[in-house]
């Protein structure tokens, strides 16, 4: 594995050369109006971020710092209170742009559809011809290790398998930007590791830009090109760390001494913020 010294380089791709900006946030905030006489709640920002085309970007931060709000704002599921969000140069306003797929933490499989129809759902919505859908779905299910469960219903699958169905559904629409909101949060550690490797394979195969929201520092360090470390609420980026891993990384990357250095670096940034968040909650 290529050894790259630990550096903190904001907004740069792994090879340290400037890349095309795929999605961008400029001075974005999200403030929820106060209800029943309560003051407005400042949930996020201001944050600015340039997601480079084809990079794997992870966001870590204390609980309740606004990580999921950030993802919602980029996706167009939640409108920014101020600032601008663009995807491929087009402003994002209260609607998920074409080319963006989202995988949520909760099980979002449709229980009334079998695995095949679940995976094909988004592509059918997008009007992809049925023969092409079949090809894509078969490939996605084989890729995610679900081929033997093509005609099973979600109720017959484990939590990890259901989450893989959701990832396959996102994969079939061939997104250019994949937003992952703690997709492995409800899974056990072993399944998380395996799913992380599958995510890396998927990222390499599709060439999509990936933004992962996670609580796990190890997961963020192992999977990402860059890690955005957020402050406690209202969440802002306190630092963006460039991991420097090669694109062919896998779980063995954890054996690299730099893995520990990076993990310690992220934790040192995060610790104070996590304590602040705990203080805020108590």
């Amino acid at each position: 594995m290529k050894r790259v010294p630990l550096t903190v380089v904001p907004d740069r791709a792994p090879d340290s050369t400037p890349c095309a900006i795929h999605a961008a946030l400029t001075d974005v905030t999200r403030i929820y109006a106060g209800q029943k006489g309560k003051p407005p709640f400042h949930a996020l920002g201001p944050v600015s971020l340039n997601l480079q085309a084809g990079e794997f970007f992870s966001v870590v931060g204390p609980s309740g710092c606004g990580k999921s709000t950030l993802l919602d704002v980029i996706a167009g599921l939640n409108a920014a209170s101020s600032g601008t969000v663009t995807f491929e140069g087009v402003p994002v306003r209260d609607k998920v742009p074409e080319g963006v797929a989202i995988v949520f933490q909760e099980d979002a499989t449709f229980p009334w559809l079998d695995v095949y129809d679940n995976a094909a759902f988004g592509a059918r919505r997008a009007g992809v011809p049925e023969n092409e859908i079949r090809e894509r779905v078969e490939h996605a299910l084989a890729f995610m290790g679900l081929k033997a469960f093509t005609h099973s219903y979600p109720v017959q699958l484990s939590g990890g398998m259901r989450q893989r169905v959701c990832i396959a559904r996102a994969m079939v629409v061939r997104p250019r930007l994949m937003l992952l909101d703690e997709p492995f949060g409800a899974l056990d550690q072993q399944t998380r590791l395996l799913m992380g490797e599958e995510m890396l394979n998927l990222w390499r195969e599709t060439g999509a830009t990936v933004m992962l929201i996670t609580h796990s520092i190890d997961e963020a360090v192992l999977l990402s090109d860059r890690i955005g470390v957020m402050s406690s609420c209202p969440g802002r980026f306190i630092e963006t760390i460039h991991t420097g891993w090669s694109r062919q990384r896998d779980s063995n990357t954890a054996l690299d001494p730099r893995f520990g250095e990076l993990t310690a670096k992220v934790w040192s940034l995060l610790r104070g913020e996590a304590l602040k968040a705990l203080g805020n909650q108590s």
Partner: protein
Amino acid sequence: MKLAARWRLVLVVAFVGALEIASRRAWIDPVSFIPPSKMAEGAWALLASGDYTNDILQTLANASLAVLLAVAGGFVFGVCLFKLPRLRRVVDPLLLSYYAVPIFVVYPVLIVIFGLNRWPLVAIGFLFGVVAMATNTLNGLERVAPVLLRSARAMRMSTIDEIRLITLPASLPYVFTGVKLAVVYAFIAVIAGEFVLAGSGFGFRIAYAYNNFDNPTMYGLMLLLLVFVGTLNMLLHMAEERLYSRTRRASA
């Protein structure tokens, strides 16, 4: 056949057998109760004679109309309650106490309004079924997982598509429970209505036979009714099981 179903069958057969023996040995007053085998004979004779076909069809038509109106009206009402929280806050206490009120007391009023024809029966059947349908529809809509609705937004669905492709299929098991209850309640109400005051129909014929001490006809009609409603319930139960077996979560 599952073990529980076998035991259920044994229980029913044993009960009917006990009734047969008790009535044949005159342990039960033979004037007021006839053996189940005689009831079956009476039921077959009624069907074969064709004398009651019009009454049976009329009851079925009235009950079906009541079910149709209760299901359609209850569904729309349930959706309105879900979409309009203020309306829900207003009517919630009324819905909660709805089945505590003997709805049947309004039957004479319905006769005054509609006259002595099929419509008071359809109306009472509707009133019995509509609230069960509405509350189950509301329950189903409330239980649609928020993540499924977020998925719908992530897939850029229109409101109509979201309802058609996500909300309805996700709430279907609960809505189906409403349909099942509406069917049962509507049948009970229509037949009871005919029993109390009507000029024809299944319930009226049972009441007529009862008043004339015509036990074979009365029990024959009751048995036919029991078989019909039992079969209908079984079919609904099977359809519901089929629906649930696909969608029920392992953790549920």
